C-alpha cells in the first residue's frame, strides 16, 4: 500500500492547471445530480454548467493576463 502512494507519480506530473477540468466536471455532475432526477437532464445540465464554469475561469484568466501584461 505504501508503494501505491509513492510510486503513482502520473498524477503528480500533470501541470497544475489541468486539475481544473476533473474538479469542475465532478462539481458540475454532483451539483446537477442534486437538482434533477433524470439521467439525461443531469448530464445535459452538468455539461452546460461545466462549460459555464470553464468559460468564466478562462475569462478571469484572460483578465488577469491582460492586467499583468508587461509587468
Amino acid at each position, binding site marked *: *500500500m*505504501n508503494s501505491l*502512494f*509513492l510510486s*503513482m507519480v502520473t*498524477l*503528480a506530473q500533470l501541470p*497544475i492547471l489541468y*486539475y481544473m477540468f*476533473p*474538479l469542475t466536471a*465532478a*462539481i458540475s*455532475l*454532483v*451539483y446537477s*445530480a*442534486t*437538482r*434533477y*432526477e*433524470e*439521467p*439525461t*437532464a*443531469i448530464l445535459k445540465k452538468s455539461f452546460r454548467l461545466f462549460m459555464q464554469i470553464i468559460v468564466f475561469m478562462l475569462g478571469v484568466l484572460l483578465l488577469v493576463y491582460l492586467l499583468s501584461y508587461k509587468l
Partner: protein
Amino acid sequence: MTPSENSELFHLKNPGLAAFLSWLLPGLGQMYQGRVFKGALFALCILGMFFCGVQMGEGRPVYCYYEINPDRMENQDGAVRRFRNYGYISQFLVGLPALPAIIQTKRFDSPDNTNQLDAPVDEQFEGVLLGSEEGLPQKVIGSINLKQVPGLRGPEIEGRLQGIVQPSGERIDLELRESDFNSGRSLGRKISADPKRYVSLEVAKVVEGPKELGNSLEGSIPRPFYNWYQVPLQDQQLQDMNARLGKRWELAMVFTWMAGLLNILVIWDAYEGPAYGYKPQTAKNDDGNSSRSPENGDQQNADQQTEQKQTSPDAKGQA
C-alpha cells in the same frame, strides 16, 4: 416546488437512514433508495475526488491535528503546540473514508506509541553510513534485522544489516547497537505520518565489508500503512510536504475538502430528493382534459402517478 410537493411525487425510501448512508459512503443512500444511477454518479465523483486528493498528497492530507515545534512559536515555552486542522471538518463529511483520522489520532496519542520495538523486525533498509575516514556518507541498501534487548538504561535496540554499499556494490554484514548519545531514540515512533521509520544505530562490529566503512548508520525502514495513514502531522513532516509538493499539497487538500462539501448536497438529496424536484408538465389527454404526465419520469414516478390517478375522484370519473 416545495419539499412537501416534492415528497408527494417521490417516494423516498426511509429518508433518515438514506441520509446517514449517504454520509457514511457517498451515493450509498441513493442506491439504498433504488436510485442507482445517481448513487453511482455520486460515489464516482466524490470518492474519486477524495482519493485523488489523498493520492496527490501522498496519503497525508487527511488528519485531525498538526504539531508545531516550540522553536517556530513566538511564545517559546519548550512545549510542542498542537493545532486543529479545521479542514478536517469538511473531510469528515465524506464519511467512512475520513474516519480513520480519528482512530489514528487516538493511536498516535496512546502511551504505546513509543520509539521501541514491539517485536523483532526484518525489513528492507535504505540509508547511509557516516563517520568514515574519507568523511563522505556511504549509501547502503539491504536487509536489516532489529530486536529489542534489555540494557543498562532500559530496553535497547540491536540488530544486523546485510546489504551492499552503493555505487561500488561491495557486500557488507554489520552488527549494530544503540549509541550512548542516541539512547532510546534509535528508532522513529511506531505511529507517525511518514511511510518511512527513522533508524539511527552505531556499527558494533564489521563481520564483512571493506575497510573504509563509517561507524554510524542512519536511514529508514518501511512503516506499515496502518501506522502512518491519516496520522496527525508533526512539524517536520508538514514542512517537508509543503517544501516538496508546494501547490500540489494545497490542491490535494482542496480536493478532499471539496469532496466533503459536495457530500452535503448528496446527503440532502437522499433526505429530500432533487432540489428542483420532479417537474410534471401539463398535457392534454385525448378527451381534452388536462392531467399530469411524466416529462422524463422514471418507472417509479410514473407508477406512483398512475396510482394517484386511480385513487383520485377525477380519475374515477374519467374511467
